[in-house]
């Protein structure tokens, strides 16, 4: 492997470039017209423009990406997560072009992408699945018949969906037929495949996933679990490992099931087996397999000491997996908070604008996987993830307190972020107690507003007013001090003046 092209953007592209650099492999970034200034472009060895801002015309444009590969002379492609990461046609195209696709085979991506097929494979392999039906291929009557033995509430899910997309809840059996039809139409238009299936709804489950690594030569291991129950809009916000919900015995059983699942799928490279866990019945079910590196992979890296990105590259270039299951231990506890440009007070609505000031936290046990810099324009074209903050400590409580301190020291001014919300979330008694299920945010944080951080009289604290007044007095020449309305970045001469407080002004 001589050169790797990264078919992605943002923090994950930066993370992959780090791995390339540490392995002494040149990294090629691709960018859309909206991303010329992006961090991954600044950080890469080479960067190639692939098209207009719209993802369809750039980061999802297979022809443009293959063209960029040829122009750069890269011989391998890393897809990151999102975009084309789980697109079997892209993986196949890379292989057909004689490139190494850093990920699983197109066949495995295709099979695991079809949730009905994935269920069937897991069932046959003896991995527990949520009670449910086959796909709607043989007609709605057959589907209703098959669903007769499953007690509502039920989910009608699109076979081509996943990750919370394309599913509908049915509370009463009499609504089932109508929902199947509506969901089928919706799936047809959203995924181009109208196949739906029915699954028992596990109420308020925990979402626990297992990281796997496989070299395609028969060596498959798991790297323990990640607890990802804290979600909003079916997207994860906070993840941790180990999970507070499972004991060593259950961990071993689930880990074995994850390895069985990966083997049954003919899996190679890094992947994640997602389970629903019913902590009242102490049972777990296979939910789906993600055939890519996950957003939350750093917490596994922190607790196992394994660099998953480097292993992705090693496996892709044909090296055997030399880590043995029995050598792996979970050390300490890690928590990840996703830092999004969004406003938690108004339904987590995405926020955009320029990052006018940035100070990132640091310290022992603090990892910040970031895709941003001070002055960056947060674009509206892409997912609003800015960075991922990860803390590690010997204990869960240690990691939690470290995370709160790190969030306090994460200053992003100019766009709304989820930081204050995350601080409240981590301080919640149920989080402290480890009582985290998928209803955690709606249950505890309905109507949350950052106003709760104001002093009781609703006015800004004295310190803030004093600082603002001092900014006007001390920094007359600084860009944008209140009332001066200036936006320009000071020249070095002006900037030099700022250090002489009040001097000569």
């Amino acid at each position, binding site marked *: 492997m001589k050169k790797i092209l990264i078919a992605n953007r943002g923090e994950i592209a930066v993370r992959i470039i780090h791995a390339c650099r540490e392995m002494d492999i040149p990294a090629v970034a691709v960018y859309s017209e909206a991303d010329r200034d992006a961090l991954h472009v600044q950080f890469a060895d080479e960067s190639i423009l692939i098209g207009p801002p719209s993802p369809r015309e750039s980061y999802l444009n297979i022809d443009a990406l293959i063209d960029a590969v040829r122009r750069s002379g890269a011989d391998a492609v890393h897809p990151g997560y999102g975009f084309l990461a789980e697109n079997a046609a892209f993986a196949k195209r890379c292989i057909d072009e004689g490139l190494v696709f850093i990920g699983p085979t197109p066949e495995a991506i295709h099979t695991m992408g079809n949730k009905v097929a994935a269920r069937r494979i897991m069932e046959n392999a003896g991995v527990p699945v949520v009670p449910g039906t086959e796909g709607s291929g043989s007609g709605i009557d057959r589907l209703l018949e098959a669903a007769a033995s499953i007690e509502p509430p039920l989910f009608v899910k699109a076979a081509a969906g996943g990750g919370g997309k394309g599913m509908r809840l049915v509370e009463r059996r009499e609504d089932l037929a109508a929902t199947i039809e509506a969901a089928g139409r919706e799936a047809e238009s959203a995924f181009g495949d109208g196949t739906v299936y029915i699954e028992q709804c596990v109420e308020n489950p925990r979402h626990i996933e297992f990281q796997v690594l496989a070299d395609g030569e028969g060596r498959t291991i798991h790297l323990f679990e990640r607890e990802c129950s804290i979600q909003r809009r079916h997207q994860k916000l906070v993840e941790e490992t180990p999970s507070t919900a499972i004991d060593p015995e259950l961990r071993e059983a689930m880990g074995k099931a994850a390895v069985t699942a990966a083997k049954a799928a003919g899996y190679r490279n890094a992947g994640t087996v997602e389970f629903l866990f019913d902590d009242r019945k102490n049972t777990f079910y296979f939910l789906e397999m993600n055939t890519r590196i996950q957003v939350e992979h750093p917490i596994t890296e922190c607790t196992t000491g394994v660099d998953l990105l480097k292993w992705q590259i090693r496996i892709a270039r044909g090296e055997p997996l030399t880590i043995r299951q029995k050598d792996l231990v979970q050390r300490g506890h890690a928590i990840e908070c996703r830092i999004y440009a969004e406003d938690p007070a108004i339904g987590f609505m995405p926020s955009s604008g320029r990052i006018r000031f940035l100070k990132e936290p640091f310290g022992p046990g603090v990892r910040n996987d970031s895709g941003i810099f001070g002055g960056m324009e947060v674009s509206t074209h892409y997912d609003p993830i800015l960075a991922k903050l990860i803390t590690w400590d010997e204990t869960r409580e240690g990691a939690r307190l470290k995370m709160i301190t790190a969030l306090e020291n994460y200053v992003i001014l100019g766009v709304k972020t989820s930081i204050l919300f995350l601080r409240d979330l981590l301080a919640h008694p149920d989080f402290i107690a480890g009582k985290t299920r998928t209803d955690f945010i709606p249950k505890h944080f309905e109507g949350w507003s950052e106003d709760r951080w104001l002093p009781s009289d609703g006015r800004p*604290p004295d310190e803030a007013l004093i*600082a603002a007044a001092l900014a006007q007095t001390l920094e007359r020449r600084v860009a944008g001090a209140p*009332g001066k309305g200036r936006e320009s970045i000071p020249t070095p001469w002006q900037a030099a003046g700022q250090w002489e407080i009040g001097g000569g002004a």
Partner: protein
Amino acid sequence: MQHEFLFKDEISAVSLEKKKEGTYLVKLSGRVHEVDATIPAEGLISMLIDGRSVLAYTVGTEKGCIVCIGGVPYELGDPAAEEECGEAGLTGDGIIKTPMPGKIVAVHVKEGDAVEMNQPLLVVESMKMQNEILSDVKGVVKKVHFKAGEQSSFGDSLVEIEVEQGE
């Protein structure tokens, strides 16, 4: 010297009296503080307020500034700037602007349409989320500046409405 800041429609006044280099006597809401201040780097103010160490990050915006202390950002407006905005009539004047840049995915009104207060005018998609833009006036649509599929930038005028007078 007197400084005024606007926070959620309320004005707070702070007076700074320079004692010696970098040291100020600060008065606000009847409280008096002695403050020693330095600016170690751009956007950073290190204060000793009655001996207590407080670090603030500040940055200017179109409306004033943002001060961040203990990880909590406070948006403090410049009352003078707000007045100017009011005089120019940026709200309730029938010019509907984007609260966020994004792609216009649907336009519900055309020129000549009568619109009510809070009537949906168009839908802007930003970061995979669709946001309905509502009218903040009652009147008649004078001009629609965007078609579905077009991209809008921050502060772009989307729709102009002839405001209905009277009541």
